[in-house]
């Protein structure tokens, strides 16, 4: 196949299921019918699905008699908790 712009030779590549024709001389790219829509769909998926947040680190484990940690709600600002944090 010849490049419609410079008449150079075009080579076909496949990247993640999308066919791309690229000109060896001018590096121009030619997309077949529907391939632009495929790329747009991939782009939307990339933006719409951020990776899930990492779970809280528990790499030292927890004791069998520990409270179930439901996340988020720690009594930092309760008066008796702060008192206990700082006194014998």
């Amino acid at each position, binding site marked *: 196949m010849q490049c419609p712009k410079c008449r150079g030779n075009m080579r076909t590549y496949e990247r993640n299921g999308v066919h791309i024709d690229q000109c060896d001389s001018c590096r121009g790219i030619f997309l077949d019918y529907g391939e632009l829509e495929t790329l747009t769909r991939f782009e939307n998926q990339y933006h719409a699905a951020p990776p899930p947040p990492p779970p809280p680190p528990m790499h*030292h484990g927890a004791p069998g008699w*520990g409270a179930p940690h439901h996340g988020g709600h720690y009594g930092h600002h309760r008066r008796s908790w702060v008192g206990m944090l*700082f006194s014998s």
Partner: protein
Amino acid sequence: MAGIRDLAARYGTAPAEVVPTRPDVLIVRAGDVVVKAHAPGAPREPLERRMRTVAHPALRGIMLEPLTEEVVTIGGRLVTVWPAGTPVDPADPDAAPWEEAARLLARLHAVPAGRVPPPPAAGGPGKVVAMAARLRGNPSAAARAVRGALACLPDLEDVPGPAGLTHGDWHMGQLVRTGDGWILIDVDDLGVGDQAWDLARPAAWFAAGLLDPAVWHRFLDAYRAAGGSATGVGDPWERLNLPAQATTVQLAAAALSTAEREGRALDEVEEALVETCQRIVQFRTACHSVPTQ
């Protein structure tokens, strides 16, 4: 009191003022010096030994060095003299220096007990027993739960295991910042014992659901990264279970005593400690029950 102010003024560089602390201890600050009147009835000989230990060069940069090893008696109270430092701000607990504290404990634990003048046994286990004794005669279900948890534990003052130099009462109030950075304070419970007890409070707070797990893991990471060996190398709870459970009993007993003295119901944090005592009973009972055949 007048004598303690005079002593503070003699060492210090500014008028003496009383620093708020727990009710049985009196701390007077005069400029860059603090004078501490230890709890009434505290015996002299163990405190003298602890002062000699903490004054040893092996502990420089780890525990605050006293201005003098001398223990003075004023008005029947034992009194010691220290440089002043800035404590952790209780109004901003999220900014507390957990990693620095962990590294200081790791460094303390790395000092061979034989390198310093020998202190007495560490004070941690005895404090649990003394605090639980305050619940005597308290008929509430909460007090029964706390006594029940203590009854499940082995004799705390007779547990065999590796012993080393131990702070004995570590919490966030036991750090001050000086010109050289954070440093551990308070010799009252310094001694030879199971070093895992120095990590027992944050471990107990974590187990009670009070301490953010991320903070606990950061603390333990920093301790281990600094060479801290009190939790071994595998599952830290093999070494932490007993001291953390005992400390939970101590904290719950203290909370109940305070609530009773103030004539009020337990708050959410205090309830969490009592519930943890109930889980300790279930855990210990499950571990130690023998299958009947």
